[in-house]
């Protein structure tokens, strides 16, 4: 009756006993041996759930982390967050593998091999934080004391609002450098371009999927990788089932993605022509009288012109003779009288510039034109237009695929948001994002003379100049200007949560940048491509180890929240968060410079100058509103802010503008001439520049030599390129092909046949910029003139699981911009292929 156990069984049972056989499976306790063990070893686990945030992408979803005996063992969503519906996407779970990643940087390191290169071993030497700070502070002092603080550049990537406010903002300002650069222009700045031109709101939109009947996405794979993914997929169930009515979903993309597989219609377009499709649709909506009358307005009933006709300009004003019936007050006889009336042909309600747009451009942009540019059949364009306009409320959503294009990016997003105006969706289902305000910082940022002069120097990225008229940042341009010392050299760089040597188009230039800058400090969790060129490494805390606050980027539905970042466990290694780094730098430099001291001493208000104190001070308004105060906020983890639709916009007319006076004013302020406009790759001239219009995509490389367009897409598990050392992410990286641990060069089978390439062949993919090797994947879901590769792979550093898997298309992507917003173009490099 006694079970004979072999040694390994006994080990198993012992292990089971230690973890608490009581929790093993209660019915297993029938077995006498296990029951005996359970009785002898009763272990109580100390368990708690801590609210925190996943900030692996800008969505910043609230999470709850299960901590058992001081170890994080499970992540779930935070049910207190309305906009996420308490959910999280798969990537949030990766926090565990990232937290406990054995390849994490655990201590500050200094480079001892002065030679820098891909194959050079930096020969890192571990140092203490004290040693690290001593060096960093002395270098910062050196720059400042010789009057050139602007030669210190800050390069930020993923961030939370707290460290952005303190390190990226305050520290740079108090120190005296204007050169704080974010990754945003590698992200999606041109997505904001359209909203800005139309509404004066340089921001993403918040889409209320729950209330839409029709969704058409132009190049934004909303179920995989378009912020906020969690909000998007949490809505999906209701959007398709369980809501009011099943919404139709159309995906416009040269590649059949997982998102496209969920669509009712997949509409492949020629790369870079999404705006043409949108404009063709807009033309049909106008000529067929399908626009939303309550938002856009309508023709005056007395106007002789009562509709939009292809090719015909619509007069702005009208004069007409109208018959009116008049009653004689005495005789009560009714007579018909002719009266002259005049007025605006079309009376716009919440929009402005519609007739102008029609007359200078749209009247001639027919579905035929659109069909010719996009490759989409004319009848399909008409059908989509009718569906979109009739199935209101409808959402036209756009993203990088349609707007990360040179010269035309912002105009592409402008064309697409115009569809949302024509369907009356603005501030109904295509909304501004509710603002989240924090309590005033406890002390103001002080600038001494050195800081004042330093921050007045021109920014290295040339943002807000004629070259980049409305850009907040031109990330990729920083590389070229550092390399040419324009307008002055950069002598020190501090980069955190960024890896431009992997993620920027023309990534190899950044390797040269980090080789050139005399002192590079990289604050990072992993030794990445940027790190191996750095002079000093500082170990960063991962997402759930630090204090911070933030608000999700791009919301689904009508709420947004302030979320609290909290450490869920005791710090694992000798790491610092970027917020703590900023506080420490401020404190140490404050010992020498009174101006800096004034900016940092007391920054935590009543709560101490620590990361926790600063966060507590800044979120005071949030948690004081809760009955349980700070403790309740810590337990809840998030607040919810709701939304009031706007009725007025930040444009001169206060309306949605189909003729962008904001863009016009910006160009006028910079005194942009036609030559200047030509230089920033805009082909349109005159009034056409300021209306939604189509610019032909500009490619790098001739079609004869480089027949295919290279597009890179982001899968769900990409997570901004930082998930690649996580086995959970790698092993299921490409679900559409059931392939993990790599990326593939995806080609249409007919195209591959032309080049003698079979599925699984190793091929070279070459552009004017360079050449990479990849494995071919033949798939009918790829446009015949396109080669698609998943972003994120091709690391040559970053850890044992990330290294040498697949290839990085950024290495062969050329450097161009949507100049208005500074956004890097990602999809306009042409390539050729051959069997390796």
């Amino acid at each position, binding site marked *: 009756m006694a079970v004979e156990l072999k040694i390994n069984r006994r080990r*198993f*049972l012992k292990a089971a006993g230690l973890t*608490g056989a009581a929790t093993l499976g209660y019915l297993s306790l029938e077995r006498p041996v296990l029951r005996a063990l359970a009785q002898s070893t009763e272990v109580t686990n100390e368990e708690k759930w801590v609210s925190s945030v996943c900030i692996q992408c800008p969505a910043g979803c609230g999470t709850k982390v299960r901590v058992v005996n001081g170890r994080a063992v499970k992540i779930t969503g935070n049910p207190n967050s309305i906009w996420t*519906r308490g959910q999280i996407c798969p990537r949030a779970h990766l926090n565990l593998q990232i937290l406990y990643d054995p390849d994490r940087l655990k201590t500050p390191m200094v480079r001892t091999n002065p030679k820098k290169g891909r194959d050079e071993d930096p020969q890192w030497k571990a140092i203490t934080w004290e040693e690290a700070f001593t060096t960093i502070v002395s270098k910062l002092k050196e720059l400042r004391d010789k009057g050139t603080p602007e030669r210190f550049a800050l390069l930020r990537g993923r961030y939370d609002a707290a460290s952005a406010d303190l390190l990226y903002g305050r520290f740079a300002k108090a120190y005296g450098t204007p050169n704080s650069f974010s990754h945003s222009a590698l992200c999606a700045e041109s997505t904001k371009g359209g909203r800005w031109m139309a509404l004066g709101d340089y921001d993403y939109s918040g889409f209320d999927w729950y209330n839409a009947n029709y969704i058409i996405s132009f190049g934004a794979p909303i179920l995989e990788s378009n912020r906020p993914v969690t909000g998007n997929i*949490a809505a999906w169930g209701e959007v398709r089932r369980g809501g009011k009515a099943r919404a139709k979903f159309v995906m416009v993309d040269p590649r059949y993605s997982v998102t496209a*597989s*969920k669509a009712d219609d*997949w509409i492949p377009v020629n790369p870079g022509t999404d705006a043409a499709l949108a404009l063709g649709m807009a033309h049909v909506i106008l000529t067929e009288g399908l626009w939303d009358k309550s938002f856009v307005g309508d023709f005056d009933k007395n106007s002789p012109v009562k509709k939009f006709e292809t090719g015909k300009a619509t007069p702005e004003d009208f004069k007409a003779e109208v018959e009116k019936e008049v009653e004689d007050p005495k005789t009560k006889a009714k007579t018909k009288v002719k009266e002259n009336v005049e007025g605006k042909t079309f009376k716009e309600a919440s929009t402005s510039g519609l007739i102008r747009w029609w007359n200078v451009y749209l009247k001639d942009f027919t579905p035929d034109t659109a069909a010719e540019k996009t490759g989409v059949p004319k009848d399909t364009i008409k059908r989509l237009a009718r569906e979109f306009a009739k199935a209101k409320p409808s959402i036209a959503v756009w993203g990088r695929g349609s707007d990360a294009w040179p010269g035309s990016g912002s105009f592409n997003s402008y064309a697409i948001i115009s569809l949302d105006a024509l369907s009356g969706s603005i501030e109904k289902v295509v909304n501004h994002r509710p603002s989240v305000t924090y309590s005033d910082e406890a002390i103001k940022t002080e600038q001494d003379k050195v800081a004042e002069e330093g921050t007045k120097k021109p920014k290295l990225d040339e943002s807000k100049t004629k070259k980049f008229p409305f850009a907040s940042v031109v990330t990729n341009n920083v590389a070229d200007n550092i390399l040419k010392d324009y307008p002055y050299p950069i002598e020190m760089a501090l980069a955190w949560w960024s890896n431009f040597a992997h993620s920027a188009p023309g990534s190899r230039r950044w390797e040269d940048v980090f080789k050139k800058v005399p002192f590079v400090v990289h604050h990072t969790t992993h030794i990445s491509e940027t790190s191996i060129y750095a002079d000093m490494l500082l170990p960063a805390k991962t997402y759930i180890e630090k204090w911070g606050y933030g608000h999700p980027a791009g919301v689904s539905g009508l709420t947004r929240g302030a979320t609290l970042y909290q450490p869920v466990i005791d710090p694992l290694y000798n790491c610092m968060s970027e917020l703590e780094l900023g506080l420490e730098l401020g404190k140490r430099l404050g010992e020498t410079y009174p101006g800096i001291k004034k900016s940092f001493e007391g920054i935590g208000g009543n709560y101490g100058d620590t990361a926790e104190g600063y966060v507590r001070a800044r979120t005071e308004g949030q948690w004081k509103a809760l009955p349980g105060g700070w403790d309740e906020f810590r337990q809840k983890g998030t607040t919810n802010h709701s939304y009031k639709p706007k009725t007025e916009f930040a444009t001169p007319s206060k309306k949605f503008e189909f003729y962008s006076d904001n863009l016009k004013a910006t160009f006028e302020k910079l005194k942009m001439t036609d030559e200047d406009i030509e230089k920033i790759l805009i082909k349109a001239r005159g009034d056409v520049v300021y209306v939604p219009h189509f610019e032909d995509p500009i490619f790098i490389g001739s079609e004869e030599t480089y027949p295919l367009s290279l597009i890179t897409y982001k899968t769900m598990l990409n997570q901004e390129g930082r998930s690649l050392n996580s086995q*959970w992410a790698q092993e299921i990286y490409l679900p559409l092909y059931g392939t993990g*641990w790599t990326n593939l060069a995806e080609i249409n089978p007919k195209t591959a046949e032309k080049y003698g390439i079979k599925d699984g062949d190793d091929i070279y993919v070459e552009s004017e910029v360079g050449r990479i090797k990849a494995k071919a994947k033949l798939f009918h879901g790829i446009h015949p003139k396109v080669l698609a590769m998943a972003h994120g792979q091709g690391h040559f550093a970053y850890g044992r699981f990330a290294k040498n898997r697949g290839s990085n298309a950024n290495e062969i992507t050329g450097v161009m911009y949507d100049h208005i917003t500074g956004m890097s173009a990602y999809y306009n490099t042409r390539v050729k292929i051959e069997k390796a």
Partner: protein
Amino acid sequence: MVKYAMIIDLDKCVGCQACVISCKEENSVLSSTPEEYAKKRRPLWNRVITEYKEGEYPNVNASVMPIICNHCENPPCVPVCPVDATYKREDGGMVLQRYERCIGCKYCMIACPYGQRFFNFTQQPELEYHNPDVPRREAGVVEKCTFCVHRLDKAKAENKKIGSPDGVVPACTEACPVGTRTFGDLDDPDSAVSKLLASRRNYQIRADLGTEPQVYYLD
């Protein structure tokens, strides 16, 4: 008797694979390395596959589909086990594994028509984020989805509700951000799972084999 079943709504599923990862997280399933992966050693108790109805460009049609152990009423893996390590538990109906009996012959893996049984070729290291509620398996044993029996039994012992929409459910069901899955007792006509099954067209994978899977798919 209680008979647990799971319903997966393929219309809602977006192929995000939160179910895949949360299952590995909950059950401390071994992660593959690139070398193991190349040998097709891919322990994914919950796996997302893509079914193609591929025409030629642009008439492409693919659908994502999560598959797990089907906890069949007529499981082919049970009768082939020479040591009675695999068994169908009466209370609940889930097909489970007695790891301490498994000799690693892999006969059950061959018998399973769904490919959802996995062999521990290597010894899994003790990792910090392992779930203390689920013991790590030793090298040499077969493992698979358990319908998170540890969660269900714990709930039963603590008198908590089990089953959708607001009771304790397996990790995959809880983690799905779209609400694709419904779990519960099919022997209870009032359960969410019974009602949902009766209300929509559904199918099981390879029902023609007579395995009587307890995982149902909604179109």
